[in-house]
């Protein structure tokens, strides 16, 4: 479509600049004897990091945690995406929103909410179970690897959902019909046709969740540490917090293993989806996404999806609302309900820093996600349609900052931005956000691009359409579900971004997540929950607007067969 080598080179320069700078600073820091990025050369940090006797156990925990979270998030997303996009389930619009709610909640709050529900001492659900069945044993101990996987999987569910759902909605049902006409059962069709065609999206989702959970800190610290379960991110934290002179060079040296793992995963993904033609479902031969009639299964499935959505997603949000109304956290009781008031909400809405944070985060969410999505469209095009070595490099580059554990990458950006005039500005935050979370835009768009046959753009070009005309009039309309998914992922992420913000934000550039962290450090869980719910409401509003705009501009007309 475009002059391909020029486009690829330009994007490698842009993306490379965005993502390499902090990583290079961290690499320098990992070889520097001092506490800053430039110091006397040493390899002692790598020796210390990888000869630690605990490291093997940490790696085992990390593999179980990340793979478990990826399986949990992807399987749940597959189920929800299927019923939401491919069936005539009633109230689908609500379930679509519910599926992506966890990504609007600050992770620290979502984790704390699950602790209140499932801690073994007085967790609300555990208490309910113990009273109902008159047992002394808790139903589930949240402070375990299983608990960590439960919460992280739910937090990453929207990532998986927003990658799988567009692919699922673009799925041509005639493929399944052909299979059934040839005598295959529903199960055989699912495993031989449906899932293989969705392979790029499923793999993309699993890989993105693995990489994200590798970098995750909230769940390992709030759920894992009390259970004495350490993974890579908390191991890094333990290393930098043991002593007042936190050595981020050592942290970067440990973080390099996460980087290597992520890049390996990207190449595995490229290998497994190498023959992209296999996964094309939108060609020039009359594409019609269709809906499956559930008939007698409609209401039983509605009940199942409703209960799942309530217990896994809405209940933790309700717990947050409950905490936001209390003067301090306590289990539900008559006394607790008598103490309820709007005081925390009033405090938050009258706090000038909270209001400034809200304004800054909204700006970063809307403008940052829009710029990030535009960049993602071009990068995804090159990654999917120009499968050269250079496009592989571009894909790896896009994952660089994203792959680093969050508590380290922020320092990498600080080491970089402090050498520029942008240090301490909203612009630095925006560039950092886009650079780090580019995969959130690229992955759903790549999954969508894979399903669009190149004959469509070739037809436009043969008819005299310019590259940009073809992009604007042919490709983008077909990409709308992917664009909406990417934008929603980025905007929600930017609204609650913490790891970069906590290092880069300064007075005047405070953002919501930093204000939330302040409340958390002060132990003000009521105000924290109130601000968290405000954040969820704003994100939901943005998601609804994006979804409405997406359906208005989409050229895909869903036909109910």
């Amino acid at each position: 479509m475009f002059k391909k080598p020029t486009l690829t080179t330009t994007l490698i320069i842009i993306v490379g600049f965005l993502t390499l700078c902090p990583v290079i600073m961290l690499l320098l820091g990992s070889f520097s004897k001092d506490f800053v990025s430039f110091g006397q050369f040493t390899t002692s940090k790598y020796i210390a990091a990888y000869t630690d006797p605990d490291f093997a156990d940490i790696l085992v925990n990390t593999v179980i945690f990340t793979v478990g979270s990826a399986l949990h998030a992807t399987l749940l997303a597959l189920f929800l995406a299927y019923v939401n996009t491919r069936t005539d389930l009633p109230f689908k619009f609500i379930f679509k929103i519910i599926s992506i709610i966890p990504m609007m909640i600050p992770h620290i709050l979502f984790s704390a909410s699950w602790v209140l529900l499932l801690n073994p001492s007085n967790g609300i659900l555990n208490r309910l179970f113990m009273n109902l069945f008159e047992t002394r044993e808790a139903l589930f101990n949240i402070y375990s690897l299983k608990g960590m996987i439960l919460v992280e999987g739910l937090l990453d569910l929207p990532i998986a959902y927003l990658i799988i759902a567009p692919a699922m909605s673009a799925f041509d049902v005639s493929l399944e019909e052909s299979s059934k006409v040839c005598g295959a059962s529903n199960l055989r069709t699912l495993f031989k046709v449906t899932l293989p065609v969705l392979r790029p999206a499923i793999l993309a989702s699993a890989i993105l969740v693995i990489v994200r959970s590798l970098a995750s800190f909230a769940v390992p610290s709030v759920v894992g540490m009390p259970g004495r379960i350490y993974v890579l991110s908390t191991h890094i934290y333990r290393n930098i917090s043991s002593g007042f002179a936190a050595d981020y060079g050592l942290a970067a040296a440990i973080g390099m293993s996460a980087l290597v793992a992520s890049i390996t995963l990207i190449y595995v993904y490229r290998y497994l989806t190498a023959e992209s033609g296999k996964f094309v479902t939108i060609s020039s031969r009359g594409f019609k996404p269709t809906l499956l009639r559930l008939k007698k299964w409609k209401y039983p499935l509605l009940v199942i999806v409703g209960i799942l959505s309530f217990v896994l997603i809405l209940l933790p949000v309700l717990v947050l609302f409950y905490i936001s109304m209390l003067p301090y956290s306590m289990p539900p009781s008559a006394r607790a309900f008598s103490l309820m008031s709007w005081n925390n909400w009033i405090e938050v809405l009258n706090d000038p820093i909270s209001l400034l944070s809200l304004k800054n985060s909204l700006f970063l969410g809307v403008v940052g996600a829009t710029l990030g999505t535009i960049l993602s469209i071009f990068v995804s095009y090159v990654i999917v349609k120009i499968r050269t070595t250079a496009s592989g490099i571009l894909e790896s580059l896009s994952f660089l900052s994203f792959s680093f554990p969050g508590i380290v990458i922020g320092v990498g950006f600080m080491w970089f931005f402090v050498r520029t005039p942008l240090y301490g500005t909203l612009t630095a935050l925006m560039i950092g956000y886009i650079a780090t979370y580019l995969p959130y835009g690229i992955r759903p768009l790549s999954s969508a691009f894979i399903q669009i046959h190149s004959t469509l753009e070739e037809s436009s070009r043969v008819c005299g359409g310019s590259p940009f005309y073809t992009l604007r009039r042919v490709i983008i309309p077909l990409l709308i579900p992917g664009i909406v998914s990417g934008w929603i992922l980025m905007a929600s992420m930017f609204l609650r971004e913490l790891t970069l913000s906590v290092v880069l934000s300064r007075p005047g550039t405070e953002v919501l997540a930093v204000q939330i962290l302040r409340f958390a450090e002060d132990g003000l869980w009521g105000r924290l929950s109130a601000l968290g719910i405000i954040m969820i409401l704003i994100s939901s509003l943005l998601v609804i607007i994006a979804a409405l705009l997406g359906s208005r501009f989409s050229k895909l007309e869903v036909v109910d067969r």
Partner: protein
Amino acid sequence: MKKLVVLLLGLVLLPGLCATVMAAEKVNLYANITAIEPIMADFNAGQSSEEGIYTRISTSKYLATVLTEFSAGKLRADVLQGPLPILQMLKEKGVLAPYKSSSASGYPSWATEDDTIVQFGIEYVAPIYNKELVKAEDVPTSYMDLTDPKWYDKIVMPDPASHATTISWLIGLKEAKVFGDDDGWMKFIKGLAANRPMFVKSFGPSPAPIESGEKLLGISMPKYIITKAPAPLAWARVDTLFGTTRAMALAAKAPNPAGGKVFIDYWLSKKAMQLLADKVGEYVLTPGVYPPIEGVDKVKVLPIRQLSDEEIRHWGDEFQKIFYQ
């Protein structure tokens, strides 16, 4: 396309330029101390023409942030507040400037003996309990009471293998000979470990499980009795409380050194320290000023020796062997 590129560039760069223009003539405090908004508000409402702004930096990122900015010539702080060991490291690196404030004239001599760093408070640690769930007769009266098996699985504390202040505090108990000799101290450590406390990453998250009733008591800070009121928190009346000291200094290349001095004078004044005690529950070194927590004005509160990072790592490893068995 060109218009689009210009528009996008404008959107990216405009907020940065605006922020650069807006940042002018203020006193910038870098601090790890939390909940100090009432003191900042009082300073800004006072007679000084200076406007104080507060950049909060967690202890784990403090040194990296300040040294990075300083080495790039972009340290925005006029005044730095943090744990004493961090300020001592910053002094060695030339980040701090000497300044003796007359406001600290009544402080204990050990707090003001340095020509650059002044110590103004003690980050005091105590056994904290849920007063609605722990019966009066069960409340610990000594540190050794925490080793009673009745507290098995009922204690919360910061991770003694990694949290620097907790490690320093445990060693402080040893060096103060709270348990007589080292054997007595080790008996306490092993008894506490045998009660299998739940670990959190720092003092910040330690009161939440106590107030919610998930745990009955914990090793935490009495200041939460003020900041988390009306949560049912109280402190166990042990003989002596210990803690690391909080310190403050003027930055060597402060953008606004005169403003920085005004701010330090204000911060160390009895008025500001009274606010810090009343609103934040901090234990301050101004004579006669105590947080409004019952019994704190009568208990002995002592600073502990500042451990070096090597010592903290060494003892962290030792505690890991004991507590993670």
